[in-house]
């Protein structure tokens, strides 16, 4: 618990308020994300030598790191949550790699879409999309393609790929499945404490 939470009326009254800040230590990361179980992609030794974002993008072995990085930045721009680390966005992007390997139409949609976005970025800002300096500049490019099939595909998939990822739920205060914990009958279904007394 940090000081802000201790000072909040909710915390004083005992209402459970979840920590929703970016957590940096490995221990806190694992605790906050629930990612202690198997199935998490681990970084290669080589990957650790690269900046974090490049290392994540390099996980796309089929589509390649450059496309991975573009999709990652694009995903962040579509549903920006400053407090949430790249890794969670990458978890929504990463399935494209295997799918694109099996689905040539999808691979083409992504490759062509990224190429177009990069071409627009170079024309306007002299740099690929992922390196365009400000969010405002990148959004000006996304607005130009938002009705196209590529943008619609990425955005549509993000709705479930990102928000339906159980690992991000704690960062939003979504506590997930409760029946195995006995529901909330003894765990705060009626613990609201900030309403004036009736």
């Amino acid at each position, binding site marked *: 618990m940090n000081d802000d939470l201790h000072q909040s009326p909710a915390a004083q009254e005992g209402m459970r308020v979840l920590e929703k800040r970016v957590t940096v230590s490995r221990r806190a990361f694992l605790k906050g994300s629930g990612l202690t179980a198997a199935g998490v992609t681990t970084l290669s030794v080589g990957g650790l030598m690269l900046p974090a974002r490049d290392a994540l993008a390099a996980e796309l072995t089929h589509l390649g790191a450059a496309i991975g990085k573009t999709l990652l930045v694009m995903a962040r721009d579509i549903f920006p949550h400053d407090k949430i680390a790249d890794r969670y966005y990458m978890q929504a992007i990463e399935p494209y790699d295997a799918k694109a390997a099996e689905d040539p139409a999808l691979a083409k949609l992504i490759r062509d879409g990224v190429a177009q976005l990069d071409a627009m970025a170079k024309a306007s800002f002299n740099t690929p999309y992922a390196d365009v300096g400000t969010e405002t500049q990148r959004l000006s490019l996304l607005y130009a393609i938002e009705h196209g099939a590529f943008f619609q595909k990425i955005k549509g998939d993000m709705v479930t790929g990102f928000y339906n990822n159980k690992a991000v739920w704690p960062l939003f*205060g979504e506590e997930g499945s409760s029946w195995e914990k006995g529901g909330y009958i003894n765990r705060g279904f009626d613990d609201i404490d900030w*309403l004036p007394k*009736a």
Partner: protein
Amino acid sequence: MSKTFSKDDNSVVVIIGSGAGGGTLADELTRQGVDVVILEAGKHHTQEDFENDEWAMFAKISWLDKRISAGGWHHTETYPNLPAWIVKGVGGSTMHWSGLALRFMAHEFKTRSTYGHVPGANVLDWPISYDELAPYYEIAERKMGVAGTKASGLPPMPPNNHYRVIEHGARKIGYKDIVRPVASNTRPHDGRPACQQIGYCMQGCKIGAKWSTLYSEIPRAMKTGHAELRPQSMVLRIEHDKSGKATGVLYADKDGNQHLQKARVVCVAGNSIESPRLLLNSASSLFPNGLANSSGQVGRNYMNHTTAAALTINPGPVYMYRGFDIAAVVSDEVPNNPDRGFLGGYHLEGLALHLPFAAAFMKPGGWGREVSSALEKFDHMSCVWVCGEDLAQEENSITLHPTERDQHGLPIPIVTKTDHTNDAAMRRHGLAQWRKLSEAVGATRVIDMPPYPASHNMGTNRMSEKARDGVVNKWGQTHDIKNLFVSDGSQFTSSGAANPTLTIVALAIRQAEYIAGAMKRREL
């Protein structure tokens, strides 16, 4: 003690569908010694299959066979192949329903008399009154265990955070009629446990505290030795003899093999899209426009409630999903008061969403900080669903696609819906009132959502006094074919402002009494 009936046994009542209508009818008929065969299109899920997971359960139990949204409503863009959010499986949509068990008001049975002629609408009085249905509402509330009702004797559902925040705002802006009649046990009842405030009620109640025919009416009917349940049995057509009497139904099993089950009486309870679709698909040389369709009203007058939804960001945490899914329900706006600029009324229903559905429904197609900044406050959110009267219009309909066929070779249904101007005015009023209510609590932001696919489908085989105005009489018996009944929400003449399940159950109890009596008297 499940029974098996021969397919040539023409003494049975065949019930098509096992949801609120069909499941209740099976229970009530077998209780009176009538033999029934229940044909259910979907699988037989059990509580083992239920997960506290919105998308997983959506994929598992929804009716996802292709349908087409048409007409002037926004679903043609936002949900082009999901006009309605209902269930395919034993128990039907009682697996998914929110549990809110509201009665119609008296005037909602007499809309034509109350509203007068409404231009552009096809409004009609029901052939029954509130007083005629009231005793059956009582039985339904007792059967279903509706918390806080005299009939059930069960205590009210204890308020959760979401209830409290809505109730507080409602009282501050002067609302007084704040209710929560929900069919979930507040103490062990009818062999089912008490609600543990788990949430995820619309994903199938994991412990069976919320009423569903899946684990109350259907097993009870089976125990009598008078019922056989055949899941994964999709009825393709209803057969009739030369005199026009229904003789049986043709259905496909899970492997696609076709069977003919003979019947003394056929009851259709496949929900307001499938029921008229089946009658239309049963067209014959004797009935070229479909069964029971001499009025031309089969598939017409499709109503799904005038709905809207909004998410409110409150000044403090709410965790709206903790506890029963239905929070406070404001009924003050239900009475008919044309001074508001529209006919009929609506409920403001607190209805919790989890993060995945909040993200999906809040602004379909939306993106950017407008969306993400709101979702960052998910734990502070409350959520309303406006449930208001939808006026019958003939053009709002279920029709058959001219060329596209389903896996059984049958034309797929087209669901056509266009708002009446009354709907738009009501929706605006409801959202404005919710905003006031939210601001009274200190809300910092209210996000109006477009209506998401409704689970309430009504009116496509409506009841009418005269055969020319509708499809069934006051017993749900088709005007044209004596031994053919409609037993689901498609009987509704008006939609009212109430969630339909309680009324479907009350009508099914009443219909069972009629059918059993008529069979004894040899009228059927």
